[in-house]
């Protein structure tokens, strides 16, 4: 849904001050940029069947985030470092074989989360900040500082550049690793490069909008798009569009929800995730109807 369409909606739909607030503008920009990067990488993630790796990298950002908090550096650096290290270890112990992939991802995730438990324990005992866990895990797009926008945009561009550079060989090796290898493509190197792009995209998303939304934006829009079209280029555009729409509508609803009751606003992640989930379910309907019709005739 575009901004113009939103503006045309009746007044109660958009509560006063939505576009005027600085936080909201930053949230819209960051959310949109992250949705584009996640959707683009997500199409390959879904084709390659690596949703678990995406989710694991998101979770492992907790480790990086708490390490950064402990070391006193910006969380994004911790997120990024953890992502790269985790991606490298996953690659080393065998993400390339489809069967052992989930296991390799799971082992890395388990060890990393164990480390996160230790780091968070140290953070809370040394700095006595009790809310750290919740902040790191769930994030909030409305608390992103406007000064991080250039960095966010830069990282998103880096992700898009990696994907654009690798596009054709990556697509081929994602659909059929054997065929790619036969054409002289270094499948493993390509897989590692893709994993790096994935780690980057997830770190970007997790640090700004939280790990839940990072996985949701990575997998949901891309899976929906791939159900609707078989052409990868179209799927990428569609995934980015669905991601942006869900993100913006979710932010709008979360902002509005502040006025629904006295208790304060509902979280953005709840709305965005629900929207993405519903769109995914709906995208399965055409195929279902077609199948019913085939069976009926």
């Amino acid at each position, binding site marked *: 849904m575009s901004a113009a369409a939103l503006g045309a909606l009746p007044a109660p739909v958009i509560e006063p001050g939505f576009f005027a607030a600085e936080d909201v503008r930053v949230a819209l920009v960051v959310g949109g940029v992250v949705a584009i990067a996640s959707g683009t990488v997500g199409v390959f993630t*879904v084709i390659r069947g690596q949703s678990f790796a995406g989710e694991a990298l998101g979770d492992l950002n907790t480790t990086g985030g708490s390490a950064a908090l402990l070391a006193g550096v910006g969380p994004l650096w911790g997120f990024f470092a953890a992502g790269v290290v985790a991606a490298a270890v996953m690659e080393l112990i065998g993400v390339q074989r489809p069967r052992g992939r989930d296991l390799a991802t*799971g082992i*890395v995730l388990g060890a990393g*989360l164990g480390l996160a*438990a230790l780091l968070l324990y140290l953070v*809370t005992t040394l700095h006595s900040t009790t809310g750290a866990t*919740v902040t790191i895990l769930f994030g909030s797009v409305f608390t992103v500082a406007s000064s991080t926008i250039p960095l966010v945009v830069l990282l998103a561009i880096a992700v898009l550049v990696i994907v654009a550079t690798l596009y054709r060989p990556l697509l081929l090796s994602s659909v059929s690793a054997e065929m790619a290898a036969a054409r002289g493509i270094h499948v493993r190197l390509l897989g590692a490069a893709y994993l790096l792009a994935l780690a980057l995209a997830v770190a970007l998303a997790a640090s700004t909008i939280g790990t839940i939304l990072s996985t949701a934006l990575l997998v949901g829009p891309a899976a929906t798009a791939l159900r609707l079209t078989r052409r990868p280029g179209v799927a990428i555009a569609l995934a980015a569009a669905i991601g942006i729409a869900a993100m913006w509508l979710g932010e709008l609803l979360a902002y509005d929800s502040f006025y629904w009751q006295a208790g304060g606003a509902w979280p953005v992640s*709840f709305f965005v*995730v629900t929207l993405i*989930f519903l769109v995914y379910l709906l995208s399965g309907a055409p195929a279902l109807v077609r199948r019913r019709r085939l069976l009926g005739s």
Partner: protein
Amino acid sequence: MFSGFMVNAWEVASIVAVVAGLVGFFVVLRGSAFVAHAVPNGSFAGAAAAILIGVNTLIGLGVFSLLGALGIGLLGRRGRHDVVTALALVMMLGLGSLFLSLSVEYAPEVESLLFGEVLGISSNQLAPTAALALVCVAAIALLYRPLLLSSVLPEVGEARGVRSFRMELCFLTVVALAATMTVPVVGTLLIFSLMTGAPAAARSLTDRPLVAIVLSVAIALIIVWSAIAASYTTDYPVGFFVGSISAGAYALGRGWAAWRGRRSSGGAISGPSFNDASTIVT
């Protein structure tokens, strides 16, 4: 270390390890590590909901892990399995964040649910944990042969009248049950490292399913016991030790398999074992 409240910790953790090792064997066999991560992790939303409306946390965990597991099973019939698992997980976590935002005084409890609090286990947790464990073990014992067959050779299973989809739903229900009982002890984030690390290590030691199960339970017990002992002496969270010792066990298993493979050099490890057979058939 073995007195007073610690007795509860040892008993409950041992029960948890037995179930994790047993259920985990099938998790690793079926390649469903993601489900074993998603179901307990998502069930945390259930705990948040239970606290919000003021019922027993165990009920919330149970309802949500069952809903999540069955949702994954049903949706996974049409969509891609990993996609559906990821979406079910984020949906549950999204609900969890909503429940969290609605209740006020919850933050410390989140942490203990995420990373487990084995040292804080009270004696009245013993009975429900043991009961759920019995159900899990009985279910696995009942399903053992058809589940093994449909995990390794789903098409042969289908031909013999073992419906893969039905087995999948049964398996997911068992995972949900195991998640419900283990989450309060080991935590949502680390139960699956027990469920994958121990059986994966066992699998690299033997190819025979029953031996692997016994080994898996034994390794899980060793992991949990040493994690509690380490946590008790150092005061660091038990989840850290569970996670790192599990990964260490897996690494040792892999190392052992590689060493044995090089010695026999017959490719006994890399050849089609009962796990890889399914890859060949499908």
